[in-house]
């Protein structure tokens, strides 16, 4: 971990409250994410982790509070606008384009970087051709990085689950995001697949300097790879700090293990 240096605050979440009708999913959540760090959000089932991620990603618009990326506030934007600001995500339940090949799936991640218009593309005129080639080069780099070269042309629907998760990560990486949101990147994986995924996450963080916010259930993994951890329970923040601080926080222990009556 020595090589990585956490920098200034890049993502600032202030006093977020989110309600669905009468149900309070999140109340008054505040935390920040520093540049180049790996920030984990943990908590028991129903704690509001995914809701928090969906707020940052623009899927949900919180009723109160603000979220800003490098000082630019975006709590009232939709997913598409958030993507334009440089926030990418992966999904807990895979949301890949199943009928498309690995290559095409990851190429879709380059969509925002494409500058040629539909008519140039239709005719494959100069600029469109060059652009496609340049993006293809980036995507091939990502495929090499994730070690899925052999599956390049395979429709993702036919790949093993663990590898599909990598494609999901690859598609998000293709956006060259400033902040990468990972929603349970290791859900449903076996030990070996978890180790691979942990390695990829650390490498992304290390090599590309990408800031990562992740939700994860596996406590061992979280404590190993993250720099700082936010703990949610019933939509409230009950802990925030380094893995060691969080591990010894009595509120966190009781939330996970229950209190003695």
């Amino acid at each position, binding site marked *: 971990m020595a090589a990585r240096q956490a920098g200034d605050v890049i993502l600032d979440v202030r006093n977020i409250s989110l309600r669905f009708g009468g149900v309070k999913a999140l109340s008054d959540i505040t935390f920040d994410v520093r540049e180049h760090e790996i920030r984990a959000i943990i908590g028991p089932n129903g704690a509001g982790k995914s809701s928090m991620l969906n707020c940052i990603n623009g*899927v949900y618009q919180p009723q109160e509070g603000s979220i800003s990326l490098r000082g630019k506030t975006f709590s009232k934007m939709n*997913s598409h606008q958030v*993507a334009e600001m440089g926030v990418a995500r992966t999904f807990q339940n895979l949301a890949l384009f199943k009928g498309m090949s690995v290559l095409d799936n990851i190429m879709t991640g380059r969509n925002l970087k494409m500058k040629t218009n539909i008519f140039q593309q*239709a005719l494959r005129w100069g600029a469109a051709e060059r*652009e496609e080639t340049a993006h293809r080069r980036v995507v091939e780099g990502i495929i090499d990085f994730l070690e899925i070269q052999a599956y390049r042309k395979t429709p993702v629907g036919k790949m093993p689950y663990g590898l599909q998760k990598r494609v999901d990560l690859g598609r998000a990486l*293709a956006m060259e995001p400033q902040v990468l949101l990972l929603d349970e990147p290791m859900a449903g994986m076996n030990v070996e697949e978890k180790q691979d995924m942990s390695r990829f996450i650390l490498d992304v963080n290390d090599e590309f300097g990408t800031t990562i916010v992740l939700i994860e259930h596996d406590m061992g993994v979280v404590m190993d790879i993250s720099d700082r951890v936010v703990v949610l329970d019933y939509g409230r923040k009950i802990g925030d700090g380094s893995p060691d601080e969080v591990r010894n926080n009595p509120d966190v222990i009781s939330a996970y293990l229950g209190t003695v009556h």
Partner: protein
Amino acid sequence: MGPFLETLFGGLMVGMLYSLIALGFVLIYKASGVFNFAQGAMVLFAALAMARFAEWIPKLTGLNNKFIDNTIAFMLAVLVMIVLAWLIQKLVLGKLVNQEGITLLMATLGITYFLEGSGQALFGNDIYKIDIGMPKDPVFIFEKTFEGGLLINKEDLYAAVIAAVLVALLALFFQKTATGRALRAVADDHQAAQSIGIPLDRIWVIVWSVAGIVALVAGVIWGSKLGVQFSLSLVALKALPVVILGGLTSIPGAIIGGLIIGVGEKLSEIYLGPHLGGGIEIWFAYVLALAFLLVRPQGLFGEKIIDRV
């Protein structure tokens, strides 16, 4: 041998047109999950626009070159279909994001009536002809291969070639361009597509525009054969069995389904007709679709939906 092949060819040509209309259904269903009941009305609307533009342009400009008139009329009709797609997205579908399929279906039913009414109000409700200079005379082919050869309508042959070229262009567009890739992405998963920054609104306008242009081509071909009139919007009803047969989500399915129905109804008319009292052409497609629903509800090429319980 001769009569059989002639019927077969005739069926293939009609089938090609069914395919074109079915293609409109499939394009929109794939990209937005909307079953667009208005596809037939779009064919009528587009054909009416083309027919009247081609009539008005010589009067207004004094240009009397048929080719130029038709080209300008076609361009204008394409423009009309793009504006229409934009309006449908802005005024109707954009307001109904994340609604139930049945709600969207009802909305397209509304669009159907609107298009049929406004199309006839804007462009008139007579029978109009589209003359794009397709040769009407029949030709004999394969005269060397066997005695008598085959009598083929040249017009049908041209129409089939135009339809085939259009289908090939669409396939290339979908497979080879970045926009095509974005369209396929949206078809697979709306939420994921949004998260990587594909703007859904724009994609849907593009899809409806493409479906509109496909409707225009189908309308022009039918119109130049049989004239443009209200009954054109009913041709789309023939495309329903086609999409059931081919699968709602498959472009090759729409094409092959159309051909099967076209050939099937012509052959059954000739060979079964005399035994069953004739008129088979009218209902054959629906019975075939019904049989398919019982045996293979997802169609020939459709995605099989497996629900985990």
